[in-house]
């Protein structure tokens, strides 16, 4: 069952608009699909254990199939753990294998982070130390992904919460080297950058000046929360005006930008409401002239 054509995403000249949809809310899908060009599929929340293996939920795949004539798809993973010192998460690759058999996507992407260590889940995501060792590890795995799936692969910079370890590269240089040496594209998450400014004192001006924007193909937008003095990357609210303004700034710099994605957690939908999500999509489209 091929449920989607990737053409929607790859041939658009202006950036397309995407949003996350993780199933089980057909009314939401009915409302947002006409407002979108692309649906972002997050494989992790729609995967479940079936016996000893992990499989994609068939009912959610059917939901995607039902709108395949109207939107394109990308896949954005959370749990591959591309930066684990020992190995990435093989179960996650099985999920991707199954997903790519069912859904034709423009590209897939992952977070530039680590979610498991020595085979054990951290239960959260760590940013990687900005070292040559981490770069070499990630680039080798990006090459393996490119060989395995034969479609473009993007990496997203993640927001770090813990104090940073000593670094050999600046935040922008780290991304530049990975993109250059691996051939992957980049996703810039505007809200993550704001988190790093707040939590680690990231010099945003310098970051934007140093980053090679020719590799940025996607921008992420989201809203999060402040908790115990920290700014948390939790996709639980609409985008704050300054986040949207930063995304506009990024979009102006990124000549290869193809997609802008508003991300919200499935669990946040009851709090946000369908109306607010639809309004947000219209707001993002207008702000970025999509």
């Amino acid at each position, binding site marked *: 069952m091929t449920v989607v054509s990737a053409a929607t995403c790859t041939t658009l000249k202006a950036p397309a608009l995407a949003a996350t949809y993780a199933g089980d809310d057909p009314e939401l899908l009915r409302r947002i699909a006409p407002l979108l060009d692309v649906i972002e599929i997050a494989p*992790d*929340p729609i*995967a*479940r*254990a*079936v*016996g000893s293996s*992990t499989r994609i939920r068939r009912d959610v795949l059917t939901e995607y199939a039902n709108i395949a004539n109207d939107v394109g798809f990308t896949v954005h993973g959370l*749990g591959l*753990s591309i930066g*684990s*010192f*020992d190995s990435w*998460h093989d*179960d*996650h690759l099985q999920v991707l294998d199954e997903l790519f058999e069912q859904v034709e996507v423009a590209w897939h992407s992952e977070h530039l982070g*680590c*979610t*498991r*260590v*020595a*085979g*054990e*889940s*951290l*239960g*959260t995501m*760590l940013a*990687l*130390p900005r*070292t040559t*060792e*981490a770069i070499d*590890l990630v680039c080798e795995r990006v090459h393996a992904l490119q060989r395995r799936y034969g479609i473009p692969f993007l990496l997203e910079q993640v927001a770090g*919460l*813990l*104090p940073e*370890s*000593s670094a050999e590269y600046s935040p922008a240089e780290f991304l530049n080297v990975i993109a250059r040496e691996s051939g992957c594209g980049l996703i810039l998450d505007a809200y993550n950058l704001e988190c790093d400014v707040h*939590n680690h004192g990231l010099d945003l001006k310098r970051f934007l000046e140093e980053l090679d924007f020719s590799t940025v193909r996607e921008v992420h937008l989201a809203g999060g929360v402040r*908790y*115990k*003095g*920290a700014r*948390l990357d*939790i996709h639980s609210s609409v985008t704050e005006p300054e986040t949207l303004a930063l995304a506009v700034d990024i979009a102006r710099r990124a000549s290869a930008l193809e997609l802008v994605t508003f991300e919200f957690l499935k*669990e946040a939908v009851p709090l946000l409401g369908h109306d607010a999500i639809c309004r947000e999509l219209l707001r993002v489209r207008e702000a970025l002239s999509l």
Partner: protein
Amino acid sequence: MTPLEREQRGILALLKGRGLASRDPYLERISNSPRLEILREIAVRWRMYQVEAQCRYTSRLLKRQQRFEQVVGQHFISNATSPFLETFTLDFLRALGADADVLVRELASSELAILIAHEGKQEAVEIHWDRNPDLVFSALEIHGPVPLPSAGEHFILRVGSEIRGLVECVRESATAAPQ
């Protein structure tokens, strides 16, 4: 051990409250950072949320016993938990099958069996109850008082994908009347 391995293994140990195997200035800085507790709290709260959504009866019972957060947190810290949240829930319910509280054991085992049967791939299993499970589920549903063990009675909850409605319950007596 490379610097990356040392850093990641160290953070895993700190997150899971296992302490550090050796002295490392960076990891010691993390262990003293309030951000570590925030990170652990986020990880546990996500799992609490998922458990609540997937097995509401066991969650409600544990909340009544005022140990829901503690039990979920302890399971996260003590086990090599799955990154897939649904799998985490199944493992969590399996672990509660050995809980000291008999009602928690009965309820968690039943919800686990129902979740698996719902996937359509389970032969019938039997969970033995010391009280009427139907009344327990009903009480938790309406936040009413949970019945006490039934003196002299024994209930068997059968759960399986081949069973109509997935579950059936019999009182272990001469009448064996379906509940």
